């Protein structure tokens, strides 16, 4: 919601030109009003771990979950006949962005004693046939020119968005991302239980940012 309206919002926050309170208060409130206040997102979810959530989705006990390519194999193992689909997050104007990020990259340490072996391994991984094998193992979208593949899952329709870069994960773009993201998760739980308000979460993020930037 933030990025589709203003792609450099997080950059502005990171370099001090803006704050989380300015950019994220309205989106948080929209999310809370649409998902929590309506009862779509139950407080019960706070007491479940990710395995239980996927179990409940596979057993058709819950309508929607956050997930990714890594959940597909578990769902299909538990309930191969489950009919399900996925959708991107939309803003109020209908612009859609998929929450996601590039997977971890591979690099060779400058202090390694096995540089040749590392290079050989990277060259091995770069071959088209091995890229395809890696894609099958990870179920992720691959953005490599000239490599044709099928995801064979509900994520097939995500391929074009992956190639065009229509995905974003704010928490990895944030400065001091681990600490800020943890504060967001705690704050959302506090807002759902009534221990805090949803409007105060961006304020807490700014406070945490100030603390971690010292």
């Amino acid at each position, binding site marked *: 919601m933030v990025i589709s309206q203003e792609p450099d919002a997080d950059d502005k926050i990171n370099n001090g030109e803006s704050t989380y309170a300015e950019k994220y208060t309205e989106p948080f409130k929209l999310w809370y009003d649409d998902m929590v206040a309506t009862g779509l997102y139950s407080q*019960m979810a706070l007491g479940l771990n990710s395995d239980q959530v996927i179990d409940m989705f596979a057993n058709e*006990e819950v309508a929607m979950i956050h997930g990714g390519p890594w959940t597909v194999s578990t769902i299909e193992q538990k309930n191969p006949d489950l009919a399900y689909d996925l959708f991107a997050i939309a803003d109020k104007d209908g612009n859609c962005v998929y929450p996601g990020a590039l997977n971890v990259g591979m690099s060779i340490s400058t202090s390694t004693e096995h540089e040749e072996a590392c290079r050989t391994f990277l060259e091995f991984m770069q071959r088209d046939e091995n890229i395809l094998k890696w894609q099958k193992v990870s179920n992720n979208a691959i953005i490599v020119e000239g490599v044709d593949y099928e995801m064979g899952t509900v994520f097939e329709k995500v391929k074009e968005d992956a190639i065009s870069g229509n995905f974003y994960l704010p928490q990895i773009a944030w400065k001091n991302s*681990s*600490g800020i993201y943890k504060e967001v998760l*705690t704050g959302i739980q*506090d807002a*759902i239980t009534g*221990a805090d308000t949803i409007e105060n979460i961006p304020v807490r993020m700014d406070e945490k940012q100030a603390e971690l930037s010292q």
Partner: protein
Amino acid sequence: MKVKIKKELPYLGFILPAFIVYTVLTVIPLVQTLGLSFTDWDGYAIRNLHFIGLENYKSVFADRGMKSALINTCVYSLIFPALTTLFAIPLALALNSRMKTKNLQRAVFFFPSVPSAIILGYLWAYILAPTRNGLLNKALMLFGLKPIMWLAVPKWAFFSVLLVNLWGQIGWHACIYLAQLQSIPAEYYEAAIVDGATPWQKFRYVTFPMLASAMTTSVMLLLLNSMKLYDLPFALTSGGPGTATTMVSQMIIKAGFVEKSYGKATAMSAVFFIFIAVVSVVQLKLMKKREVD
């Protein structure tokens, strides 16, 4: 003096390896932590450190999460030892009775203390699942009661951590009391019977005072377990919902390894160390007075 040292040398030699290990793994890191808490250490190399005085300590006491964690830890450390002692003593008395199955029952009650707290946490997360499919909620619904959102409501999440830890620890602490019970001379009870004591009076005037040393040890272990609690709430609730079950130890780990604020984490550790030391000393001093010589 020289003769005394020469006499003690073999014994000092025996404890030297343990002393070295203890010094290297505990004392040196402790002193280092205290020193680093006054610097802007980045968690990596110990060079280019700058002395920043009490800045880390100021940020510790200004941290909203730390205040909440401290309250949680203090409340937990008051309730958990009291509850465990309240249940462990009667259990020990029952396990010390002349039941035919007492050996089996001792094993059954001791068993929950064997698996690690992480395993207990993950296991009980399924039993206490806040949905209708959670085992405990299914049992409640069998009796016509409404399901409870055990891990999703702050007060119930806190209660759940207490419950699981109680389940895991009660057998182990009953064994401490059981060992003490078996060392109480039978003559004391015979004298009490001769004096016409009722079962309650025997417990009140013979058993309970004689359990004082076991209680000192048990309560000290329970207090330490409570104050440094991390693995069980982490596995069961991840410290949530919100900060309802976040303890001080989790805040320290979060500050150090998640937020990379190593200076603040060392200051938190130092404050917590002093807190635990004071509580332990006070507890030992108060409870040792009750012990029968």
